């Protein structure tokens, strides 16, 4: 499982730590990719403003199926500390579908690692054929121009 080298705000520091020697994602075969075309999972770690949300959605659309999203930390889950703000999106799930929510402000590297392992467990139990069939109409409904953005 390759994760996208991307994070909007300060949870990125914990994301970097998770790749470091203590939790060491490499031992699970998880490495970062610097392009959404090669990534399987996007870890949204941080406050997402409306301005940024459109970029997050663009990155999500550029990822190839099957693709997964982890909402890392309070801000990505619900807007967190900034949910009363005029410019902050109240949860990344209003823009892209989320598979795993990790609470915390920020979550510790162990928590992110646990989240990634839960996601792996979830993927192992998936009937991909059925999911692809269910997603098909949605993909067809999306105009080509919008996919390229």
């Amino acid at each position, binding site marked *: 499982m390759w994760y996208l080298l991307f994070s909007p705000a300060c949870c990125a520091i914990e994301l970097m730590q998770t790749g470091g020697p203590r939790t060491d994602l490499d031992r699970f075969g998880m490495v970062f990719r610097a392009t959404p075309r090669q990534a399987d999972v996007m870890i949204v770690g941080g406050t997402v403003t*409306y*301005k940024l*949300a*459109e970029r997050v959605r663009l990155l999500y659309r550029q990822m190839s199926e099957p693709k997964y999203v982890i909402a890392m930390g309070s801000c990505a889950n*619900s*807007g967190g500390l900034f*949910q009363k703000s*005029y*410019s902050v*999106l*109240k*949860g990344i799930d*209003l*823009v892209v579908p989320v598979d795993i929510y990790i609470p915390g402000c920020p979550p510790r590297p162990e928590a992110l690692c646990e989240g990634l392992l839960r996601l792996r467990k979830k993927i192992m139990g998936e009937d991909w054929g059925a999911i692809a069939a269910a997603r098909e109409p949605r993909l067809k409904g999306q105009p080509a121009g919008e996919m390229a953005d």
Partner: protein
Amino acid sequence: MNGEAIYEQLRDRFPDKVSETRGQGPLKCVYVKPEAIEEVLIALRDQETLGFRHLSFISGIDLKEAIEVAYGLISYSLKVLILLKVTLDHENPTVRTVSHIFSAANWHERETFDLFGVKFEGHPDLRRLLLPEDWKGHPLRKDYKEEPFYHEMPTTREPLLGRS
């Protein structure tokens, strides 16, 4: 020379353009007539004995009946910060730009325009600084109403636990 002495000096030099000092402690400020702000800032910057060569910030304050713009100036030689304010009309706040006096003012004025809708006349490039260009309204104004959607993204969400 402390802040109080500088305010005294300003009032002596511009008796009809600078009005009374208000506030206490470090928040003390002097009110300047909007049309005189350029003149006063040039005087503060260029007088050798003062040397306010650093514009620390420009910001806005919404008082409901009026909009104030605050200018914070620092003198490194005197080690002192002073605060100048102009009072503007709430419906159509307009003041001359100071970006040709302090180039740091350029982005500060753009930010104040973005969040308070203050128009800085003569500014070289008065666009929004932080918010998207198609944003409606100026969110730090007291009469700002949040739109229910921005680009089809809802700006509210249901409380998860039934608590708000």
